[in-house]
């Protein structure tokens, strides 16, 4: 266990960024999101949840895939370069680290997504424990420990000092680059803090949410439930929940006409949108109820069916905070619990 004073973090960030691109929570125009670090960045480790999750670092909201150009009657195709330089993602919370595991099972299973895989290979995850979990958090439901996140390096902030614990080979390599800035820390201090965090998590209203009835089976048992018809009504069909979600992984691939060629890019898609999975014959989900149901069954039934029962919700609670109509996965789970179906 190593540590560094909070006031020395700027030096730590500067050192890390000598050899790596560094992404961390930065406050811009009043809101905190993951962004590239530079000396002028307003680093914000206090905000529990960034508006957008850090999944952008591995799976950007939009990215170019390749460019076609036509010149003198010849067409050339230039694929976008894959990530080759190392980067550090600092300050990810426990739920968001688990979310990367959810994404891995999609993008790293056959056929492997080379853009994603390159970023995963070169990305180093420095996670950060949640010292003040909030009402909207329910990570415990999915077996996530806010006091002990996964990651290449795990950090805790206790009494103005950042405790640093490398967990993997990648983490050890990063630690070696900055070793002289760190001093030895007492693991017992972290353990005390962990106990305090776990005590708060126990008290959170949604920590005891029951997932009974969800899982692969729910695709059959809950698909035709009348509850969906009740639940979806306030849904505005915006994409807020899907775009702030750390595990939503659906994307669309589109072409952009640059005037001299075509850029093929991919961008996040939302199952809440009317053209989601649009095909030549039209759209296979024609009502907002169906789109709404798709989102929750994907997280709680379809994904578990394909991934050994693992849910693709990590309980970060962003949708709880951000839905304009205050609909969210917690309300869905509770509504089914109440109906007993």
């Amino acid at each position, binding site marked *: 266990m190593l540590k560094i004073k909070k006031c020395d973090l700027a030096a730590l960030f500067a050192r890390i960024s000598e050899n790596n691109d560094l992404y961390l929570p930065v406050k*811009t*125009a*009043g*809101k905190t*999101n993951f962004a590239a670090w530079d000396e002028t960045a307003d680093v914000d480790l206090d905000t529990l949840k960034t*508006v*957008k999750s850090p999944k952008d670092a591995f799976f950007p*909201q*939009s*990215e*170019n895939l390749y460019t076609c150009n036509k010149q003198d009657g010849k067409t050339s195709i230039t694929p976008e370069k894959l990530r080759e330089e190392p980067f550090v993602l600092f300050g990810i919370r426990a739920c968001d680290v688990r979310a990367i595991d959810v994404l891995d099972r999609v993008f790293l299973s056959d056929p492997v997504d080379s853009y994603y895989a390159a970023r995963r290979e070169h990305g180093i995850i420095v996670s950060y424990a949640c010292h*003040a979990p*909030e*009402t909207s958090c329910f990570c415990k439901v999915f077996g996530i420990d806010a006091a002990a996140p996964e990651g290449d390096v795990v950090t805790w902030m206790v009494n103005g000092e950042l405790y640093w614990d490398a967990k993997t080979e990648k983490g050890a390599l990063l630690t070696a680059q900055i070793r002289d800035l760190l001093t030895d820390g007492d693991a017992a201090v972290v353990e005390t803090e962990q106990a305090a965090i776990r005590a708060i998590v126990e*008290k959170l*209203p*949604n920590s005891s949410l029951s997932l009974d009835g969800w899982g692969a089976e729910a695709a059959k048992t809950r698909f035709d439930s009348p509850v969906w018809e009740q639940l979806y*009504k*306030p849904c*505005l*069909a*915006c*994409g*807020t929940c*899907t*775009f*702030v979600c750390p595990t939503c992984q659906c994307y*669309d691939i*589109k072409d*952009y*006409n640059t005037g001299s060629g075509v*850029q093929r*890019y991919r*961008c*996040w*898609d*939302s199952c809440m*949108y*009317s*053209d989601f999975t*649009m095909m030549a014959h039209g759209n296979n989900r024609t009502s907002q109820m169906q789109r709404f149901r798709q989102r929750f069954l994907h997280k709680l039934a379809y994904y578990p069916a394909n991934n050994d029962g693992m849910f693709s919700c990590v309980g970060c609670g962003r949708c*709880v905070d*951000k839905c*304009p*109509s*205050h*609909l*969210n996965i*917690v*309300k869905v789970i*509770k509504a089914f619990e109440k109906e007993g179906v």
Partner: protein
Amino acid sequence: MQELINRAKSLLESGEVSRVLGWRKGETDWDVEPAFFNSAEELSEFIYNGFCGANLSKYMIEASKLEGKTLVFLKPCDTYSFNQLCKEHRVDREKAYIIGVGCKGKLKIENIDAAGILEVRGAGYPDASEILTVKTLYGDREVSYKSAMLERCHVCKGKEHMVYDERMGESADTSDADRFAEVAKIEAMSPEEKFAFFQSELSKCIRCNACRNVCPACSCRKCVFDSTKFDSAQKANTTSFEEKMFHIIRAFHVAGRCTDCGECSRVCPQGIPLHLFNRKFIKDINALYGDYQAGADTDSKGPLTDFRLDDCEPSIVTKRG
């Protein structure tokens, strides 16, 4: 609140209305959701409190297609949106039974959080001038009511309902700011400063379309940004031009029809002050074509569907500097 429920029950029972459009209780006081209630039984979940900021008039588009009348609760500012939708023939006045419900300013949970008050469970509902008592997991906390209000309540349009069948509850005018002060501040900036300001705000945009979907004036059956045949379709593109284009067109399309209900700014997950776009158009319209409040009536011509022979030329933009 019980009076509202009782009244709704009696209207349902008498058959005057077939359903009720209001707000449903959530886990806490602040996560209330817009909801339809079909029976007296369901109304036990009805709630009306300081967090019922959602403007229900847009839901009346769907409700107008249903059998029978819908009882809808509208706050004074919501009635402007309802009127505007009537004018555009998007809702049917005959299908609505409107209870003009009292409003003394609505709260924004983010503002309470920003004051360092976390784990909010509920709040009192005093007059806007008073102190708000917030119930939290850690006991009661206090914050000034005004600092917890939605942005739009600081520029309240007044306590009068523009359209209603009956009124219940008291309203108060909570305005304490100049509606166009922020716009004027930006207008006074240099082009570089203006550009930098909007660039930093719009760079947060995640193209979730919440601002568009919540807007009562955005009621096209098919939005141009939903077209699959169009470069600037609804999803985020790889350059920043996208966001500018989307937000200019979104605001322009509602120019002259926007009642300044402030829903766009309320719902933005990134806290982008979207009302600054709409209010710029309103300010220009007022200055160039005469004061106009969309939704104040159902028969006036909107400023962009009207003209005068002696209107100013577009070069006025350059001339006024």
